Every structure is written in structure tokens, then in C-alpha cells.
């Protein structure tokens, strides 16, 4: 029993790395722009397709594939703010947006998902693992791909936090998150920061998609369930709270992995949704969030 628990704990850690990359990007965008990106899962899928194209079609090395996955999602993400969000913001002016941004990104999600379906077809594409082999512990076997996921996820999240803490642009992002008007008055170009933030958040989703592609397959709707799970994670961690999102990712992933011991695996997905509803009803500000007005 003890070894079984440890095995699922490791599984949870691997899954948690993916969730964390994805949810931190989502919550970063929310924290800075106050917009929930419903199309986040589609950037995850873009990452998957990019690594498929790089590794299977062009036979590039896996590292190049991962870079391509990140860069592709980053570039598409860069276009989102200037082309979609800024025009709506401009038209709304000072009026309350209500659900309009949600509807907008939902439309983007439908558009991207079905464009990928039209372009690539609905098949489940297989991607070879970036590194082969694995680590043989006495009670379980961990493939190197899983170790790679944990390593890359921790490194890139560390890099993101360092960037936000010490880099000029990163500090500007945090300033805008705290108070857009004040940030603008000290000369921070809001539009550029918003563009960069959406790009960064989407790049993280693309990286996650590229990393997990060898374990899942790649198909157009691959990211949608993950998007909804990431909503649960961001709510659990407190909306806009990056560290909260990281911790909540690990919690949800571990609980999901462990739940197989207790409940049938078909119901695994219900955990995240149930948690989300429960947290919103009991403590809407999340585990680590500030009390809401």
C-alpha cells in the first residue's frame, strides 16, 4: 500500500508539473488583464502540433521541438491582444465588460479548435518521447520523459518567477497587475505589456503541450478539459495568484492521481470540477487569495 501511494504521488507530481505550467500562464493573464482566457487549451494544442511537426515531419531533435512548441504558441499568443482584446477594450471604453471577454475568448477557442481540426484532421497523432529509457526504482518504473517533464516545468517556472521579479519587463508586468493607471502614469506602455503577458501565458501553455505530447496524443480538443481543470486550479489558488496556482496544481494533480485508489477512474475528472464548485461556494477567494470585497 505504501509503495502504491508513493507511485501515485510521483504520477501526481508529473501531472502537477503540466498543470502548473498551464495554470500559471492562465492566472498570469488573468492577474494582469483581468480576462479569463477560455482559449488557453488551444495554445496547449498548438504546442502539441508544433512538436509533432518538428519531430515527426521534419525529424528535428526533441529540444528543437520543445523550443518550436513554445515559440509557436508565443507568436500566436502575441497576436491575441492587439487583434482581439484591444479592439473590444477600446470600444467598451469605461463601461463594464460583463461577460464579453469570456464570450470573445470562447469564440476564439471554437475558431482555433475547429481550424486545427480542419487543417490536421481529428486523428490522434503520436509523438515519440524526447528521451528514451527510464529510472527503475524497485517498486515502480519512471520513464525519463516524466522526469524531463518535472525538470523542464520546474526550470521554466523558476525562470518565469525570476523574470517577473528582476527583469525590467517582468517588473513592468507586475506593476500593471497591481495598478494599470499608476503603471501607465510612470511611463509603462500598457498595450505592450498586455501583449507580452498574453504571449508569455500562451507560451507556457505551448510548452506544456509540447512536453506532454509523447504521453497523451495530439488532437484538436486535447486542451479543452485541461482548460476547465485549470479554471478549478486558478480558483483554488486564488484568481491571479501565481504561487497559489502552482501549489493548487500540485494539490489537484496529486489528489487526482491518488483518487484512483478510492474511486473508479472514469470519475477522476469530476474531482477538479467538484473542487472548483466547492471552493467557490465556501471560500470564493481561494486558498491563498485575499478576502474579496
Amino acid at each position: 500500500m505504501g509503495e502504491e501511494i508513493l507511485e501515485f504521488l510521483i504520477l501526481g507530481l508529473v501531472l502537477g508539473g503540466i498543470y502548473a505550467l498551464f495554470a500559471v500562464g492562465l492566472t498570469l493573464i488573468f492577474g494582469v488583464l483581468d480576462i479569463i482566457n477560455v482559449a488557453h487549451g488551444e495554445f496547449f494544442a498548438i504546442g502539441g502540433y508544433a512538436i509533432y511537426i518538428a519531430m515527426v515531419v521534419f525529424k528535428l531533435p526533441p529540444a528543437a521541438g520543445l523550443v518550436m512548441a513554445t515559440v509557436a504558441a508565443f507568436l500566436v499568443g502575441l497576436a491575441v491582444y492587439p487583434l482581439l482584446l484591444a479592439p473590444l477594450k477600446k470600444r467598451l471604453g469605461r463601461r463594464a465588460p460583463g461577460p464579453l471577454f469570456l464570450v470573445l475568448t470562447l469564440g476564439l477557442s471554437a475558431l482555433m479548435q475547429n481550424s486545427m481540426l480542419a487543417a490536421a484532421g481529428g486523428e490522434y497523432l503520436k509523438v515519440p518521447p524526447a528521451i528514451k529509457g527510464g529510472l527503475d526504482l524497485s517498486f515502480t518504473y519512471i520513464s525519463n520523459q516524466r522526469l524531463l517533464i518535472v525538470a523542464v516545468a520546474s526550470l521554466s517556472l523558476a525562470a518565469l518567477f525570476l523574470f517577473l521579479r528582476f527583469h525590467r519587463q517582468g517588473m513592468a508586468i507586475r506593476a500593471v497587475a497591481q495598478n494599470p493607471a499608476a503603471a501607465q502614469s510612470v511611463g509603462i506602455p500598457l498595450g505592450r505589456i498586455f501583449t507580452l503577458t498574453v504571449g508569455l501565458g500562451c507560451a507556457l501553455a505551448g510548452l506544456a503541450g509540447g512536453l506532454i505530447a509523447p504521453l497523451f496524443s495530439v488532437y484538436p480538443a486535447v486542451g479543452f478539459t485541461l482548460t476547465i481543470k485549470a479554471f478549478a486550479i486558478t480558483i483554488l489558488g486564488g484568481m491571479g495568484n501565481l504561487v497559489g496556482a502552482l501549489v493548487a496544481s500540485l494539490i489537484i494533480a496529486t489528489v487526482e492521481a491518488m483518487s484512483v485508489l478510492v474511486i473508479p477512474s472514469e470519475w477522476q475528472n469530476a474531482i477538479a470540477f467538484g473542487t472548483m464548485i466547492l471552493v467557490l461556494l465556501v471560500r470564493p477567494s481561494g486558498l491563498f487569495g485575499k478576502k474579496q470585497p
Partner: protein
Amino acid sequence: MSRPVRTLAIIALAFAGLAAPLVWSHPFVLHIAVQALIWALFAASWDLLSGYTGQVSFGHAGFFSIGAYTAAISTKLLGFSSWLGMTAALLLCGLVGLCVGFPALRLRGHYLALVTLGFGEIVQLVAQNWGALTGGPFGMHDYGTFTGLPSDPLAQRQAAYLIVAAISLVGLAILLYVTRRTTAGPAFRAIREDQVLAASLGIDTTFFKLLAFTLSAGFAGLAGALYAYYIQLVSPTIGSSAQSALVIGMAVFGGIGTIWGPFLGAILLFSITESLRFIGVVYNLIVVGAVMIVFVIFIPRGLAGIRLRRRGRQQRADRQAVDAAS
């Protein structure tokens, strides 16, 4: 045009539009017309809660799905006629809407949208995994269509069309009546514009929000029941988030917050995208996504708003004429 003349013209136009599929009774035309009307009722029910009362639901397909399953189960396992099945779907979904509405009272904006999204996903999971009741991933079939349809295939389709048209129009009329002719309408709008202000003016926001949830969920469920009896197959995918996204897209296309806008928008958009199936199956959802994006950014009041803008222009012209005369 004076008001009664315009009303008559609209009624005549509506009747002509409704009669068209009966005159041109090609099976494909009828098939699209029936489904378009089902979607129209669904979109109008979404609009009552989300557009008119401002409580945005991203999981409305969950109610639709519960309604469809209620109809299928009550006919297959309990032997209900389709009329009883539809009533059951309407009542049960209203009840479910009330139950979802209660906890959702505390939530606003983003949070409500996310909770309802989670609700829709849970409904889909239950439909998929509670095999004994719902038939699992393959869904339910073999429970029959509307009660008392003629056996001739063409007459059967025409009769089904008439039933669906009558029920969804009555549904639309009830929703319009509630929002235009009762005190609930202004209360809904007040909640949408400013909940705190509405409460301070003595409007019982709890009651009216729950009313909106109940009505909206009930009619979404009724649309689901119509779907179940017409298509004669319900599967978990009818409760997917993609369906919720589709209905939101239709409402945005028609003009949210007007009830009749989403009704007409759904008919138009559904007919357009189904006709696009000739080009390719997947392109129709690309169109829906593009429509959502373009309309939200550039035409936020949808097709219904185009009429309103013309009226505004006319009012301005009148005012100028008055100014010039004085």
C-alpha cells in the same frame, strides 16, 4: 409604419416563414427547420438568464442534456407519452435550475460562468458514467418519437415540425410575456445593470434571480426534450461545452438581452452553418467561432441591434426636424 400595421406585418412575415418548410417539404429542409427551432428555444432560454438578467451561464447544455435524458428515460423506462415526457423535462430542469441557482446567488461575473461550466461538465460525466440509467457513452435510443404522429414518413416529419414549432413559439411567447408584461422584466434588467442598486430599491434580487434560473433551465430542458423526441437518440455529447459555446454564439449573433434576437439568431445561424455542411463538416463551427468574435467586437448588440440603431437614427432625424421648425 404605424404600430398596428407593423405588428401585422411582422406576424404575417413570421407565419410565412413558418409555413415555408411545410410548402417546400423537402426532408432536408424540414430536418433543418425543426432543429433550428429547437436551438431557437434553447438560445432564447439562455438569453433570459444570461443576456436579460446578466447571470452568465457557460453550462447551459447541461440543462439541455438533463431535459433530453429525462424525456428519453421517462418514455423508455416509465412508458410516458411524449407530452408527459416533455412536461417532466420542463419541471425537472426547472427544479435543477433552482438548485443550481441557490448556490450561484453568491457568485457574479467570471465566477458564475466558471461554476456553470463545471456544472455542465459534471452533467456530461454523469451521463457518460451512469450506464445503468443513461446508457453510458453510446447514449439512449429506441424510445420512440412524439406520440401520435402519422405513419407516412413525409406527413410524420411535417407533424413533428408543427409540434416543435408550436412548442418553441409558445416558449418564446412565455419568455417574452414574462420579460415585457410582468414586473419580473424590469427586475431582471435592474439586476443585470446594478445588483446592489436593485436591492436597495426594494427589488427582491434573490427571488428574481432564482426565477430567472428556474425559467431559463426549464425551457432549456424543454428544448432538450424536443431534441430527444425528434432525433430519437441522446448521447453525452449533447451536454458538452461545445454545445454551450454554440448556443452562446447563436445568442450573440442574434443580439443578447432581447430574447427574440437569440431566437431568430439561432434559426439563421443554424440554417447557415448547416448549409455549410455541403462544404465540409468542420467548417461550420469555425464560422460560429468567427461570428462570435466579430459580433462581440464590432456588433455587440447582434442582428437585433441593427434595428435599434435605425430607430435611434430616426429619432435623431425627428429631433432635428423639430429643432429646425421651432
